[in-house]
């Protein structure tokens, strides 16, 4: 099928992951932080699938399915928290959430 070294795919996955990490570190908007987390999960999934394809086993794809389910659950709870944050303080600033009490 594909005549690309395994390392190239892993380098692509790690670059995507680092960009997601940069997004989490830099952005203050909660929605952007959630999107960056999605990028990181997706990059990890790419590494899983590439490793599974490298060893000719379906395990990598099964792991990607688990990552997918986890991302779906995380996004539903995360976005519900975003709505609460916006409702409470009418802003999406992550720093405002440091005022949480009780």
């Amino acid at each position: 099928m594909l005549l690309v070294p395994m390392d190239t795919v892993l380098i692509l996955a790690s670059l995507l992951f680092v960009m997601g990490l940069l997004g989490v570190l830099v952005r203050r908007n909660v929605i952007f932080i959630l999107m960056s987390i999605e990028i990181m999960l997706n990059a990890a999934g790419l590494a899983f699938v590439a490793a599974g394809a490298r060893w000719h086993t379906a395990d990598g794809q099964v792991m990607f399915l688990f990552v997918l389910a986890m991302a779906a659950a995380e996004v539903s709870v995360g976005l519900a928290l975003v709505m609460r944050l916006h409702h409470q303080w009418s802003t999406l600033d992550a720093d405002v959430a440091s005022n949480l009490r009780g």
Partner: protein
Amino acid sequence: MSATFYVTGAVALLATFMVVTRTSAVHALLYLIVSLLAVAIIFYQLGAPFVAALEVIIYAAAIMVVFIFVMMMLNLGPRTVQQERTWLTPTIWVGPGVLALALAAQLVYALASSTPVEAGFGLITPKQVGQRLFGVYFIGLELASLLLLAGLVGALHLARAQRRAEIKGTL
């Protein structure tokens, strides 16, 4: 054949960079969809058509639709774009940017200096995935369904708490 991989990878990297740097949330979301579709094409080239389809259907469609719904309900206007502009000053980028670049350089160096493996990525059919998923990984499958249930209950609880607060506010 490998040229398509490099083009798709470049598209994915560029789109992801645009996601991280945009000020408008909707523009970032559109770029994120492009990035996810590019990764789906890479999955297909790696011989994983089932996962490529799931990436398009669940990631690029279902999860992104949830994002769009939330943005629609929050009704973010030009005010938030202006706010993002004031937040994203170059001084904020320096520290995390240098750290992330150092990490990326280390990862790329470690991966590039290892002995290259010319992997002949073969096709893995959905049937094989299903056999593994419902065989060895059956407990994991059950736990994933429990996790989704927990996510559902958690989101429901947070939404209900909001409605209770609204009712209390009107009284």
